[in-house]
C-alpha cells in the first residue's frame, strides 16, 4: 500500500498501461471503421453510425451494474468483508453511470433521426432511464457520511435492492407500452441481419468499450483506495495531535 502511495504514477501499473494502449488502438479502429469504412444503412442511413457507440455503451453499462451487484454480494457474503470488493463495486457503478449517460444521449440523437423524436415512452428506454436514476441514487448513498465499513454495507445493500427493483420496473413498463426496435444482434433465432463489416465494427466497439471500462475501473478503484488511506491517515494524525496536546 505504501509503495502505491509513494509512487508518482500511483494508480497506474504495467498491466493498466498495456490495457490502455490496447483500448486506444481498438477505439481508433472503431472510429475509422465506423465513420469511413462501413456503409450507410438502407433504412437508417448515416444515423446507423451512432449504433457503434450506442450499443457497446449500453452493453457495458449493464455489465457494469451486474459487476457492481456481484462485487456487492461478495462483500456482504465474504467473512473478511474485503474493502476491495466495495471499491470495485463503487468504481464499476460510477463508470456504468457514465456509459449509461452516453447510451441515453446517443439513443436520443439516433431516435431524433430515425423516429423523429428525442424520446419515446418505450419499455427499454424507460427502464434504462430508471436504471440511470437508480444508480445516481446509489452513488449518492456512497457519499453519505460514515466510515468505510458503513459505506460498504449501505451501498452493497442498495446495489442488491436495485437488482430487485429493476425487473419490477421493467415488467411494469413492458405491460404499460412497447415500441423499441427488437434486438438485432442478440435475437433468439440467431439470424443476424447486419453487413459483415458493420457487425465486425460493432463487436470491435464492444471490445474497445470493455477495455476502456476495465481501464477506468482499475484506476478509479485505486483512486478510491488512496482516498480511504488518506482519510484513515488523517484520522490517525488527528488522534496523534490530540494526544500530543494532552501530553503537553
Amino acid at each position, binding site marked *: 500500500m505504501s509503495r502505491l502511495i509513494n509512487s508518482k504514477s500511483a494508480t497506474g501499473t504495467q498491466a493498466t498501461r498495456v490495457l490502455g494502449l490496447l483500448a486506444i488502438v481498438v477505439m481508433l479502429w472503431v472510429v475509422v471503421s465506423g465513420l469511413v469504412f462501413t456503409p450507410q444503412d438502407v433504412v437508417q442511413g448515416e444515423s446507423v453510425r451512432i449504433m457503434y457507440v450506442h450499443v457497446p455503451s449500453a452493453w457495458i453499462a449493464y455489465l457494469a451494474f451486474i459487476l457492481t451487484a456481484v462485487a456487492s454480494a461478495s462483500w456482504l457474503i465474504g467473512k473478511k468483508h474485503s474493502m476491495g470488493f466495495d471499491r470495485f463495486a463503487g468504481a464499476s457503478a460510477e463508470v456504468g453511470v457514465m456509459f449509461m449517460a452516453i447510451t441515453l444521449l446517443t439513443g436520443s440523437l439516433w431516435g431524433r433521426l430515425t423516429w423523429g423524436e428525442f424520446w419515446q415512452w418505450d419499455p427499454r428506454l424507460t427502464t434504462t432511464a430508471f436504471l440511470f436514476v437508480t444508480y445516481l441514487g446509489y452513488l449518492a448513498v456512497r457519499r453519505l457520511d460514515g466510515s468505510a465499513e458503513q459505506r460498504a454495507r449501505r451501498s452493497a445493500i442498495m446495489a442488491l*435492492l436495485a437488482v430487485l427493483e429493476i425487473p*419490477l*420496473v421493467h415488467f*411494469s413498463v413492458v*405491460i404499460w407500452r412497447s415500441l423499441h426496435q427488437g434486438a438485432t444482434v442478440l435475437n433468439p433465432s440467431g439470424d443476424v441481419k447486419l453487413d459483415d463489416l458493420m457487425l465486425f465494427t460493432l463487436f470491435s466497439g464492444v471490445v474497445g468499450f470493455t477495455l476502456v471500462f476495465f481501464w477506468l475501473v482499475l484506476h478509479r478503484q485505486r483512486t478510491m483506495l488512496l482516498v480511504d488511506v488518506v482519510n484513515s491517515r488523517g484520522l490517525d494524525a488527528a488522534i496523534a495531535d490530540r494526544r500530543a496536546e494532552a501530553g503537553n
Partner: protein
Amino acid sequence: MSRPNKGKVFSAVLIKDLRIELRSRVLTNQVLPFAGLVMIMFAFALDNDDVLQRVAGGLIWLATLFSSLIIIQRSFAVESADHALDSLRVAGIDLAGVFFGKAIALAIKLIVLDFVLIVTAMLLYRVDLTGPGLVLLVTCVLCSATGLGFVGTLYGGLTAGAKGRETLLPLLLLPVVAPVLIAATRATEAAFASGGAQTSEGWAWVGLLAIFAAVFGVGGSLAFGPLIDE
C-alpha cells in the same frame, strides 16, 4: 430480562408511531391539506373536466407519492430526534419487528391519505365508483399502501440522520416506486371506468402491486437492520 419477540416489537413500534401521529396530528393538519391542495392545483393546471375525469387515477397516486415523501421523512424525523433510533438499535431487539411496525404504521397513514384523496377526486373531478369498482379500489389501496410502507421504511431508515436527506429520499424512492405508480394508476382507472376501462382489467395490476409489496416486505425485513446499523 428476556428479549421481546418480533411480534411484541412490531406491535409496540406500530402503536408508538400511531400514538405519536394521533398526538402531533401532522397527517391531519399538514399532510392532508397539502395533498388536497395538490389535487386542486392539478385541476388548475389541466383545466378540463373530461381530462380530469380521464386522468383522475394518475393524479390520486401522484399526490399520494408526493405526500408520502413528507410522511416518511416525518416518520424518521421522530426517530432521529434525541437519537431514538440509536436507542432502538442498542436495545438488542429484533430490527425486523421495528421494520414491520414502522412500515405498517406508515401504510395505515397512507390508507387514510388515499381515502381522502379518492373522496376529493370524486367531488372535484366527478369520477364515479360502482360496487365492483369499490372492491377493486379498496384492494388496490391496501396493496399499494403496504408496498409503499415497506419501501418508504427501508429508504427512510437509510436516509434518517443523513445530511441532505430531504433531497436524497426522493432520488432514491421515486424510481423504486414507479411500478406502484403505474399499477395503482391503471387499477384505479379501471375502478373508475375512466376512458371506458373495464373493472376486471384492474385485477392484474393489483397482482403486480401485491408482488411488489411481497418482494419489498421480504427484502426490507432482511435489509433494514444492516442498513441502519452504525
